[in-house]
């Protein structure tokens, strides 16, 4: 009955209950599949509206008239003996199946009813937007309580006649392809320029490298590329500024040196002051000579290095004024160091702007400018010496752990030697003068001096 290989038209559903005795399993399975049988009936006989009891009766009658003659079954006589025995269990089986089917049918009817109710609700809601009164009457209480009346609308849409115009697609494609080609052409132009700039940049970097500067890779958050180390860290400097600059490339491919922090502009200036009419007057000055012109990158690196050295030198000097405070060395305004010396000589060390350096050159011709220059050179050399000392300390084998060292007071390495060497000779002179005076007094007094005083 439900052989899958046969098409739907070949199968004719019998309205009679299936044969009980022959194959109960088949019968049961056919009854269980009520949901499959109903669509099949609908396919064979059309709508249930057309299926009437009379028609079915007629059909059954016609069938019963024809079948007995055609299919007068031969197995009937053989089964006649066994049938009475089987009929009792088959009847209970049949009753059970019937009940099951009835329950199934009830369930399906319930589902259909539910679906019909939902459809009714849908239609009612749709109508309620046009005629609220008519729609509300047929709406279910659940829908009424949950959805506002008239909230579903409908309208007719006139679909536009779709005509695919191939020229539109062609135009779009043309546009896209030409835009892509434009883009590639522009990019190639830009990248060619970029390549030329890169070449220019790297040539300059190579010049810097050939000049013997120490280059390194820089991996900073805002910059990735080459950097140059111009500082004195490797020479033994312990200054906070390490002297690392980045070699950046500007839009034109030029190499731009960018030092960390602001660009330094200060150089060291040494002034010698002597009293004149009760006031100190500058009698000689010397400022470090640093090339202030902005030349190529090599020049800029050299300038940055010189200025860093000046910066560190003044930092060290200013730091050592504290140690030499007992000798009257003072630090005024944070940028002027006053060193009083015997014989009313005073040395002022300060930082001046690089631009003022040329203005102050006019004053270099003072009588004491030689002294000022010598002092300036001495200071620079002393800083070099300090670097060397640091380097040696860094190179030396460290003391074993746990060694107790007496932390000595900070020693003045730059100002100390300068001040002492400048102060010694006047002090010595004054001492000799004192002793000579004493000697002459003693000689004049004609005291018997057993031992002569030789100086």
């Amino acid at each position, binding site marked *: 009955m439900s052989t899958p290989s046969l098409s739907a038209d070949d199968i004719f559903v019998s309205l009679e209950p299936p044969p009980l005795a022959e194959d109960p399993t088949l019968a049961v399975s056919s009854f269980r599949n009520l949901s499959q049988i109903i669509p099949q009936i609908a396919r064979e006989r059309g709508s249930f509206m057309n299926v009437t009891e009379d028609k079915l009766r007629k059909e059954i009658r016609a069938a019963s008239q024809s079948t007995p003659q055609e299919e007068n079954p031969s197995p009937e006589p053989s089964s006649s003996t066994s049938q009475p025995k089987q009929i009792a269990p088959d009847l209970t089986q049949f009753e059970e199946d019937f009940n099951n089917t009835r329950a199934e049918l009830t369930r399906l009817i319930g589902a259909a009813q539910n679906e019909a109710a939902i459809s009714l609700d849908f239609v009612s809601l749709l109508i309620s937007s046009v005629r609220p009164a008519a729609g509300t009457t047929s709406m279910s209480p659940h829908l009424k309580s949950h959805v506002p009346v008239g909230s579903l609308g409908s309208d007719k849409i006139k679909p536009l006649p779709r005509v695919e115009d191939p020229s539109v*697609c062609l135009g779009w494609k043309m546009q896209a*392809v030409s835009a*892509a*080609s434009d*883009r590639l052409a522009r990019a190639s132009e830009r990248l060619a320029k970029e390549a030329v700039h890169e070449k220019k940049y790297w040539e300059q970097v190579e010049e810097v490298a050939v000049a013997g500067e120490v*280059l390194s*890779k820089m991996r900073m958050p805002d910059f990735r590329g080459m950097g140059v180390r111009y500082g004195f860290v490797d020479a033994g400097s312990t200054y906070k500024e390490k002297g690392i600059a980045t070699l950046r490339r500007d839009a034109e491919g030029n190499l731009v040196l960018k030092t960390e922090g602001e660009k330094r502009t200060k150089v060291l200036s040494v002034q010698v002051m002597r009293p004149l009419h009760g006031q100190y007057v500058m009698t000689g000055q010397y400022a470090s000579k640093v090339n202030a012109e902005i030349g190529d990158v090599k020049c800029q690196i050299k300038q940055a290095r010189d200025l860093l050295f000046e910066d560190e030198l003044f930092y060290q000097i200013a730091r050592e004024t504290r140690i030499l405070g007992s000798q009257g060395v003072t630090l005024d305004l944070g940028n002027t160091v006053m060193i009083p010396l015997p014989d009313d000589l005073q040395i002022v060390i300060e930082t001046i702007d690089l631009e003022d350096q040329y203005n102050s050159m006019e004053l270099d011709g003072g009588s004491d400018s030689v002294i000022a220059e010598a002092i300036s050179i001495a200071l620079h050399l002393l800083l070099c010496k300090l670097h060397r000392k640091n380097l040696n300390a860094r190179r030396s084998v460290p003391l074993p752990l746990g060694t107790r060292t007496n932390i000595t007071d900070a020693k003045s390495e730059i100002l100390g030697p300068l001040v002492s060497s400048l102060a010694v000779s006047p002090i010595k002179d004054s001492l000799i003068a004192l002793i000579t005076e004493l000697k002459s007094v003693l000689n004049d007094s004609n005291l018997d001096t057993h031992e002569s005083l030789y100086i």
Partner: protein
Amino acid sequence: MSTITPNSIQQSQQRFLTINQRINEAATTIVSEYTAILTLAPVADKDRETTAAETYQIECHATAIVRTIEDLLMVSRSLKESWILGQVASFQTNYER
């Protein structure tokens, strides 16, 4: 330039391989993107929606080509960087060896 130890030769070869690989990848990408543009170019009775989507895809592929070439520029930059720092044996050094 620093003395070339066996270790630095190894490193140099490793860098060489990496750079070669990057160049090859970029070349493959450029060709495949260009092929994609050509594949998308025909109109071939496609409807408007498909055409519009393909227009955008062409744009994307063109941008990808540009990006890949920019990447190549970065490769050349890193190569130069390595040369300057003596991390890659220059042609001359190779020749001398």
